[in-house]
């Protein structure tokens, strides 16, 4: 390791110049990252909140202060409520499904099933494909009549269905795509964590006669809690961040059945150019994300069992 020998910890006080310079060094080191973060995360977040209290600047009229007008308009906007409820349902389905499947996949790949490398490959492949690319493929899957799903269901005699054009099924279809995309990625994290679980625990449990399910529930799962928290954070972020498949497959339709908040923000901000209203919607999204973050850390932090 570069010819350094670990010396025994005789108290070696740092040379005086370092002790004085530490705070300066600290901030200097932090500076580049801090500047970028401030410019592209903190400042925009604050600016968004400020902008939501002004009107949209147009070519002939600058922005004027309108107080809570934008918020009132938002509360009265049925599309906003649809997008909000859609997003909650969407997140509520995607997150648990993805995590559960990721865990199951990891357990399988870690276990003694035949053909594990192929399984792992198959589960992970969706991660390296751009969502925008696979959304087109899924569009084919869901095409009524000759699409793959209808062809498969047809083998069982189930009639064809307009999956993406029916507002009852459209969101579920998109949920499936999102779960398919992310489960494999989270599987890797669980896999890494599982491989750190000592096999002696399993042996001890087997000797004691514990069933596999019992072992999983009482030993494995709690040990995986840090990973679960980590994966949960990512899953929550993706549930609100990933709208590529909506852009390709449904553009928010039919009749806003698949509109998610970020997609609506994109529509309002870059199709209608109503930047003030887009800022208002963004504030709602920020609040939602902040609440979720708080919730995760408060509730789950208590239940984590560190080794």
């Amino acid at each position, binding site marked *: 390791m570069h010819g350094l020998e670990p010396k025994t910890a005789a108290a070696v006080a740092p040379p005086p110049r370092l002790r004085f310079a530490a705070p300066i060094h600290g901030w200097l080191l932090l500076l580049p990252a801090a500047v970028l973060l401030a410019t592209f*995360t903190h400042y925009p977040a604050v600016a968004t909140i400020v902008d939501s209290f002004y009107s949209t600047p147009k070519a002939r009229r600058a922005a004027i202060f309108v107080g809570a007008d934008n918020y009132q308009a938002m509360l009265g906007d049925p599309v906003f409520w649809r997008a909000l409820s859609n997003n909650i349902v969407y997140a509520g389905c995607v997150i648990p499904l993805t995590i559960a499947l990721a865990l199951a996949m990891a357990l399988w790949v870690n276990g003694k099933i035949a053909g594990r490398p192929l399984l792992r490959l198959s589960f992970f492949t969706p991660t390296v494909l751009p969502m925008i690319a696979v959304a087109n493929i899924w569009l084919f899957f869901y095409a009524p009549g000759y699409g793959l799903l209808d062809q498969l269901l047809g083998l069982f005699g189930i009639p064809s269905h307009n999956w993406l054009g029916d507002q009852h099924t459209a969101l579920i279809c998109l949920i499936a795509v999102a779960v398919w995309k992310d489960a494999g990625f989270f599987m890797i994290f669980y896999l890494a964590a599982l491989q750190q679980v000592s096999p002696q625990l399993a042996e001890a449990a087997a000797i004691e006669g514990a069933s596999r399910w019992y072992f999983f529930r009482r030993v494995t799962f709690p040990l995986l809690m840090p990973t679960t928290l980590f994966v949960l954070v990512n899953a929550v972020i993706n549930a609100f961040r990933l709208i590529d498949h909506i852009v390709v497959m449904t553009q928010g339709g039919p009749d806003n059945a698949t509109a998610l908040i970020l997609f609506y923000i994109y529509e309002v901000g870059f199709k209608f150019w109503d930047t003030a209203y887009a800022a208002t919607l963004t504030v709602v999204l920020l609040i939602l994300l902040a609440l979720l973050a708080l919730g995760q850390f408060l509730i789950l932090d208590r239940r984590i069992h560190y080794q």
Partner: protein
Amino acid sequence: MSALQASGRGAAALETAGAWLLALIWILPLAYALWAAIHPSAYSAHFVPSAPLTLENFARAWNAAPFARYFLNTFLLVTMILAAQLVLCTLAAYAFARFSFRGRDLAFVLVLLQLMIMPDVLIVENYRTMSALGIVDTIPAIGLPYMASAFGIFLLRQTFKSVPRELDEAARVEGAGPLAVLLKVYVPLAKPVYIAYGLVSVSYHWNNFLWPLIVTNSVNTRPLTVGLQIFASTDQGIDWSVITAATLMTSAPLLVAFLLFQRQFVQSFMRAGIR
């Protein structure tokens, strides 16, 4: 005892079947993409084993849009972002891990904020900033919001914190300044984390779509995802053969890289201790 064994084996067989079924479903989109890409349009919805093979779709896809330029743009983009991230996050993590200064903990909380408030959510404001800076439609404009990555800082801080202090002090005693200590002691020890993080970052930014869509206008800056979407969304109708050919073309580098390095991929995650 034998009944238990038998049922155990039955359950195991069921589980294997289940796992395989799931894997089959999972690989289906890619398998379909392959099918549609190597057969003519007429067969994109009909799975006839005797259908003729063709490479024409790839040729058409390649000619229909400047994919070579898109590849270059994407490559430049992910490289630039990763390089910046490695430098910035290392410095920041080092500061958080080993330096004590006023406001450090508050600063760290502020950094963590970015984990939840990612740049993708702030598209409207960030677009305005880019506009004000005059760098809309440039590759750096795509990358700037992501270069200071809270995730990277968090990971590296954790890693740096777990480096034994003795090594740090030993190096200092040899007369190394703080930066030299960083480069000689901390960075080498954090190699698995760097690899794991690098893989995540490259894959994320290779596939990023919404922000690049908004911030780029021209062919010279468009990454693959945006180029693919523009190419695939012709109003005249969807030709899956050409679209899947383009999809495979654009995903190929990542796919191949993963196929070759999956073992290292998983291992680096393990060694990084991300759990």
